[in-house]
């Protein structure tokens, strides 16, 4: 069910260069769980586009399937959106981008969508350096299908049904760097001070910009942790195995400085350790990005910030040497070689 929000034009709302207020960048009312990290990311996208004064209708939003993949409905209501099939957003985005190089492409995906069923397409869209912003709203679980572990779930973490995840987590950011992604950043849904500038940088990056955003799932967060505060609800769920109970919680917001590290308490009382790259971090050094990620992993830390960026590599249009005019705007006379050529072709087959 989707509700259209009334678009009041509040006269006092600040306007951007195009004369738009934030309202023009919003979407329909979210139907995600109250407090879901994904909604914070949507809000950051709204803000980033507003601040960059991007024409909303010159954005295309493409997603797969999942709670995360639903979010394009909840931001940029004046943009066309495409909620495609599970794990295949990259290919749809690739086709769309080939058809019109002049739009801004937002690809939104989840960790299930990208790291499991979509792994192949994830790898190959990176390899092609498609000019797009690729956001994974990473909650380590399959939200929409009720909390199974995803391939990014931490090894040893406990999921909703109580079993311990025995598999190594796939580190999408590290993989992206290994695969030669030209822009790789990592952040936390609740850290809008960091997320908004990263999104802006990603939009401006002339190539594939990957953003792995840790985004806690209120309902099926799968970190082992204190269950103290939720006794009653947990017991009830255990006893009834009714999976339709979502304990309402608030969005997690954080704020910390570059070069610092912070502990974030998740909805279930467990904690994760975020480590923000220092201001003098050199994002153009691929080797040190790889090493820093490996070190952070060893310390169970999540490194946040712009890990790596390279603007020298050709995006797919430059690689394919496509014309500057968007292909979907070519005229019939530019497309159809005409009758004279056809006669020549015929002659060549006689």
């Amino acid at each position: 069910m989707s509700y259209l929000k009334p678009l009041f034009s509040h006269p006092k709302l600040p306007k951007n260069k195009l004369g738009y207020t934030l309202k023009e960048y919003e979407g329909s009312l979210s139907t995600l769980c109250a407090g879901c990290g994904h909604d914070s990311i949507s809000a950051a996208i709204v803000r980033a586009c507003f601040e960059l004064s991007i024409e909303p209708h010159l954005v295309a939003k493409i997603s797969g399937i999942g709670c995360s993949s639903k979010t394009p409905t909840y931001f940029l209501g004046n943009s066309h959106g495409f909620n495609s099939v599970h794990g295949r957003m990259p290919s749809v985005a690739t086709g769309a981008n080939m058809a019109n190089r002049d739009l801004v492409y937002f690809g939104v995906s989840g960790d299930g969508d990208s790291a499991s069923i979509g792994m192949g397409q994830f790898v190959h869209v990176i390899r092609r350096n498609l000019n797009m912003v690729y956001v994974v709203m990473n909650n380590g679980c399959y939200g929409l299908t009720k909390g199974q572990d995803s391939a990014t779930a931490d090894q040893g973490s406990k999921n909703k049904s109580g079993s311990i995840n025995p598999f190594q987590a796939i580190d999408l950011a590290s993989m992206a760097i290994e695969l030669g992604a030209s822009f790789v950043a990592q952040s936390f849904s609740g850290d809008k001070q960091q997320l908004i500038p990263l999104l802006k940088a990603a939009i401006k990056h002339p190539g594939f910009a990957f953003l792995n955003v840790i985004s806690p799932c209120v309902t099926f967060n799968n970190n082992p942790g204190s269950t103290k505060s939720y006794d009653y609800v947990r017991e009830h769920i255990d006893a009834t195995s009714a999976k339709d109970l979502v304990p309402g919680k608030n969005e997690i917001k954080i704020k910390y400085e570059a070069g610092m590290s912070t502990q974030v308490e998740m909805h279930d009382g467990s904690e994760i350790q975020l480590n923000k790259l220092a201001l003098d971090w050199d994002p153009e050094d691929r080797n040190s990005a790889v090493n820093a990620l490996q070190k952070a992993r060893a310390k169970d830390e999540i490194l946040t910030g712009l890990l790596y960026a390279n603007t020298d590599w050709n995006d797919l249009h430059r690689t394919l040497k496509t014309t500057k005019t968007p292909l979907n705007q070519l005229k019939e006379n530019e497309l159809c070689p005409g009758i004279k050529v056809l006669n020549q072709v015929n002659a060549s087959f006689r």
Partner: protein
Amino acid sequence: MNNRINDFIVRFANVNGTGSASANFLFAKTVFRMGIPVTPKNIFPSNIQGLPTWYEVRVSEKGYLGRREGIDLLVCVNPQSMAKDVLSVNEGGYFIFDSTKKLNPEYRREGIHYLGIPMMEMANAAFDDPRKRQLLKNIIYVGALAKLLAMDESIIRQLIEEQFEGKKSLIEANFKALSLGIDYVEKHYEYPLSFKLEKRELLGEKILVDGNTACGLGAVYGGATVMAWYPITPSTSVAEAYENFCKQFRKTEGGENNFAIVQAEDELAAMGMVIGANWNGARAFTATSGPGVSLMSEFLGLAYFAEVPAVLIDVQRAGPSTGMPTRTQQSDLLAAAFASHGDTKHILLLPATPKECFEMTAESFDLAEQLQTPVILLTDLDLGMNDHVSEPFEWDVKRKYKRGKVLTAEELEGIGKFGRYLDSDGDGIPYRTYPGTHPTKGAFFTRGTSKDEYAAYTEDGAAYKRNMDRLTRKWETVKKLVPKAEISISSKPEAIGLLFFGTSTFSSEEAKDLLNEEGIAVDSIRIRAFPFGKEVVDFVESHATIFVVEQNRDAQMRKMLIMEMDCLPKKLVPVLNYDGMPITADAICQQIVQYLNPKRLSNHELSKTAV
């Protein structure tokens, strides 16, 4: 064997990877240039080098372009397959072999003529470079055939000159090899043979080309700008042809590309790209074969339900599964028409000639965009990879692309609330907009989930049903827009019906003549699209017995006919061929005659499968 002019079959037996294709094609093309209908079939293995491969050329004064059983002359340069090859020659036929080594006496059989030519020996003596020798050995046998079959040698020379244009040493070497063959026959054998060629002017403006090339060209003319594909036999050359033609005809003055071709990581991705590009207003397509269609099925369902145009060329090969990747079949009908779960169905186009490959590929973009749904062109290995004599490609200079119902910014200004899935015109086809059209109007959300008329997500059963019913209405519109069947009526009331499509056409047409000769009147219908138009229903209704000719085991076209119409299934009689070789007229007649008169033994023998 009586003296036959322009009516015989030559087969070449080679080892693959030895470069025989160009020599064999030279032979076929010469027949073509002599103005005589010719049908070459390449029968190749699913590997790269070292296994037997055959090239069969039917020459038919009467213009029969289907395959026929029975080999009149076999050129065998492959010891591996020789034992079988010897057996495949018609009584009274000829067997040409490389006599550099003595023929194994086991390969001698009564009733056929053996013509030894020391090809390797001659090549070794004439050429130094060992790689040259291997290639030119093949030209030697072309020279021998030139003499034996009374080919026009000047045409052969001209073809060699055209092919190696500007490469003098290559031309000279080929000429030399050719003469070696000619001279050898002159010295050692009587010529021409009892069957031979004679120049004609039977072909007019016709061309000799394969269907995949025609599809690639059709996509260029049809305005496709985006192609995404994944290699698979026998569809790969569609992509190659499209790329080649684009490079010739689709460059800007500055040398930039007015097209984008992406070799995808697999077929799922290829179809995703096609859908993404079409959604964004570019004409986009992909080409694949059976396994790719299976993999694309989820995406095809999305395109059907989200109503995004998409063009898919399925060059069918023998299934199921990996099947026989280098053999032909028409066996993806059901899989393609009903690809994907739920109440999904797709438009199929069924070309029969290279010209139709060209036209239907171009038209598929019009249909896909007008109807906002996938269009699947079903061709096959035989049509796609073999050269066919075809009418020349045509293009109406006044033709305009039909881009369907797409609203411009101005049109959006003019209307009230834009309803992406509203059936404003009663034909089931709603209006769409391209992303980026208008700052505040016309944006909508495309999805594979249920939605209301305004593209808003809904789980309301009534809204869902309205949408599904509109899609049914659209399907009715489809029936009016797809290519009509081609019907030929004999005006004899007792005529049986013969229904066929695609590459079963040539042999079916020939079978008609054969049946007529036997006194059986035949009305025929060539299906060119699914869903079927009214003319198909009328044809079926007005005939008591209809033979449905197709190249698959399960009579898939027959199944589709009976599930779409209210006729008595019994009257649709399957005529099938599914051994991977193109169907022959004999096989068709045989099955029909058998059915009509089970006790009478037809004078057409049961087809033997050849390889």
